[in-house]
């Protein structure tokens, strides 16, 4: 459970020590337990970088030089998603700071705690359009939980403490601190034992037990209950309690993209992901349940489809920490506002042991209508992406006792990963859900791998997205040959856009064919071992080779070009209005037996 109070009022007051502003940044980070920062230096942040060196020498803080600031934010994001701690990124003023924005927006949309520090021109030049000046506080405000411009060194220690507090507490998010260059050079008094006094910041709303009871009563009465669980379950670390709830009352579970693995996907009550590319039966369950228990999710349009036909028959219970998400898209019948780590355990004792045989039987029949087994049951004679992902799952399950962390980019391969990889643990999949940021996979995987050096981390990307941030391959080497494995699902197209063009724009493939370099030669230039895979029978050996090779490894899967993600709910359609895979299915030669993969 997250710490509810960062203050330690019982201690003797800390004696302030004189310190330069630039050093205060690092001192505060050490106090916050930050070990790694991702950044790129430049003129306006130089004083701070200069004062970083003693912290690096003493091994307190490790600085990772990125090749583009967007990736500094993504790496901090990957670190934060993997650990649950606050990720930190640093950039200089102007272009450094504006380059961060995409990464910060990605983290903010997915409730990932990040503190970003940017240099700013000296206070006397503020507002003069000085060299490398940009209004970073103005530019970043819409994609931040909060932000600060520091023009006086006396304010800096408190601002640093507030920033970490705001980023971490409640629904996590991004806080940016823009620090003028002269403030970094100025000497002030540093102490860090402030009481946080933010009357307008209410991270943990009080829980109303009446409403928890109302929710429990509704669940106890339900005949066709369904849990729709999201990222909030992972943020509150309530996976076990969720499992207890659904097992006791026999409630099937659909997850959002970021909720994958909230309960093990191999569990009989798991229906997998719902929404735009969810299985037909998962969405059908949403449209047929009588009580929909939404937990730590925000009714994104990708999960609800057309809102005015979303779960109209159901009573909706919404467990949510962020009040503003309650009633934003869907108005619940029972809004349970508060920390899920408080509300769910409080509700559990009120939940009766129930069996829902008829409901589960019905779901079981629907489950025969599956786009996934549909394709899994065909033997492969061409290299298709779902097969590659399925093998990735087999291979990683065999290669490591701890579940692998899969970091995906955005697009078709991301949806295939959700469909064909069985996530049995929360947090196994790190992906940009809300913002859908291409180029996320490689840098976020670097962050996750640095957080867990011993775990198996796979970055799965398309040929389009990979080329957005491939310069970060250099970081893999500079950071001592990080053992990241990279799979490029290379279909020569911006696949998801092409799929939309095929389905909604009469196959006019404008701007979607992608020319790519030879990724194996490219990897060689970065001294990373790599392989091409063009045939199905090469897939398993390639994965085995990757797992057997110490250090990084890259596989370029040259998959069949025009394969679509099915089923698909067209944007703006109701979730039970599906576009299905045309028959015959993609594969030839049905063998009639369950294949080995």
């Amino acid at each position, binding site marked *: 459970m997250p710490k509810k109070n960062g203050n330690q009022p019982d201690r003797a007051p800390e004696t302030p020590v004189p310190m330069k502003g630039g050093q205060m940044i690092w001192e505060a980070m050490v106090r916050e337990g930050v070990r790694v920062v991702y950044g790129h230096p430049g003129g306006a942040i130089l004083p701070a970088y200069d004062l970083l060196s003693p912290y690096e020498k003493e091994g307190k803080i490790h600085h990772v030089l990125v090749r583009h600031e967007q990736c500094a934010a993504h790496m901090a994001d990957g670190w934060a998603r993997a650990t649950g701690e606050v990720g930190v990124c640093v950039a200089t003023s102007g272009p450094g700071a504006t380059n961060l924005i995409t990464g910060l927006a990605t983290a903010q949309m997915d409730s990932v705690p990040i503190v970003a520090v940017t240099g700013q021109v000296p206070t006397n030049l503020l507002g003069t359009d000085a060299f490398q000046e940009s209004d970073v506080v*103005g530019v970043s405000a819409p994609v931040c939980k909060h932000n600060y411009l520091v023009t006086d060194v006396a304010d800096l220690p408190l601002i640093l403490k507030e920033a970490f507090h705001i980023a971490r507490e409640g629904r996590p998010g991004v806080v940016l601190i823009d620090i003028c260059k002269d403030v970094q050079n100025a000497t002030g008094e540093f102490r860090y034992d402030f009481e946080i006094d933010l009357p307008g910041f209410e991270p943990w709303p009080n829980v109303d037990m009446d409403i928890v009871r109302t929710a429990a009563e509704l669940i106890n009465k339900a005949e066709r209950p369904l849990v729709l669980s999201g990222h909030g379950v992972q943020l509150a670390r309530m996976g076990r309690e969720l499992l207890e709830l659904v097992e006791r009352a026999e409630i099937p579970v659909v997850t959002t993209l970021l909720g994958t693995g909230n309960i093990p996907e191999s569990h009989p009550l798991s229906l997998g992901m719902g929404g735009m590319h969810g299985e037909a039966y998962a969405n059908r369950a949403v449209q047929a349940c009588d009580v929909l228990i939404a937990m730590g999710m925000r009714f994104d349009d990708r999960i609800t489809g057309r809102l005015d036909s979303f779960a109209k028959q159901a009573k909706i219970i919404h467990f949510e920490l962020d009040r503003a998400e309650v009633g934003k898209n869907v108005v619940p019948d029972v809004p349970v506002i508060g920390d899920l780590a408080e509300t769910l355990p409080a509700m559990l004792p009120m939940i009766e042991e129930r069996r829902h045989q008829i409901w589960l039987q019905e779901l079981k029949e629907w489950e025969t209508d599956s786009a996934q087994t549909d394709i899994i049951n065909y033997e492969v004679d061409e290299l298709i992406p779902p097969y590659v992902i399925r093998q990735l799952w087999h291979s990683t399950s065999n290669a490591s006792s701890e579940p692998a962390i899969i970091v995906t980019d955005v697009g078709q391969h991301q949806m295939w990963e959700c469909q064909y990889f069985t996530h049995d643990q929360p947090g196994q999949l790190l992906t940009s859900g809300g913002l859908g940021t291409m180029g996320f996979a490689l840098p976020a995987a670097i962050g996750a791998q640095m957080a867990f050096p011993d775990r198996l981390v796979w970055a799965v990307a398309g040929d389009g997205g990979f080329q957005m941030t491939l310069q970060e391959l250099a970081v893999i080497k500079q950071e001592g040959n990080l053992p990241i494995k990279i799979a490029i699902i290379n279909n020569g197209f911006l696949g998801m856009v092409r799929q939309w063009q095929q389905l909604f724009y009469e196959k006019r493939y404008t701007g979607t064919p992608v020319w790519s370099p030879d990724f194996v030669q490219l990897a060689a230039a970065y001294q990373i071992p790599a392989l091409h895979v063009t045939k199905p029978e090469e897939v398993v050996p390639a994965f085995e080779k990757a797992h057997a090779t110490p250090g990084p490894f890259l596989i370029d899967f040259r998959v069949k070009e025009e394969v679509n993600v099915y089923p698909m709910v067209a944007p703006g359609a109701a979730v039970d209005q599906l576009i299905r895979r045309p028959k015959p299915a993609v594969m030839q030669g049905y063998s009639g037996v369950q294949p080995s993969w």
Partner: protein
Amino acid sequence: MKYTLIAWMRDKPGVLSRVSGMMRRRNFNIDSLQVGHTESPGISRMTFVVDGNERMVDQVIKQLRKLVDVTRVEDISEQPIVAREMALIRVSTNADNRSEIVQMVNIYRGEIVDVAMDSMIVQIVGAQDRVDSLIDLLSNFGISEMVRTGPVAMARGRTERTARRSSAVWRAQANGRDATATERFKTGGV
């Protein structure tokens, strides 16, 4: 429907742009916005008039409350309130109509704050409809310039602060019953 909201916020640099930026980003329609100091130093008070439906206003309140610098938000639309706005109106005059204008302004308890040979400035403070109606009358003489604030508002007859009470709760109480848990949480809860 028009809703009147009051928000209290820490008087920090950029707080106005945070609030207006959030309103623009979320596509909320603000009719008017007034900012000023309050009885507590360091706290500013904003009065909003928002045009929309109940769900939108519910979101406005919740999104405002999410801003770290905003300390309190109240929806006073359904309470008895005093709401006043002010206008300065430059009316074209001549020797013939000057006294007629003065009379009208007096009826409206306005003030003439400046007089020139061919124009005068009229000041009016009052509820929105009163200001509207005087402007309407004066337009017959020719208004050459006008500036008008939006309303500032305060709830009547209560000394105790009843912050964070949703309009659904006010309505329930007006109907002589206690609010249900669902109603209490409707616009953010207690």
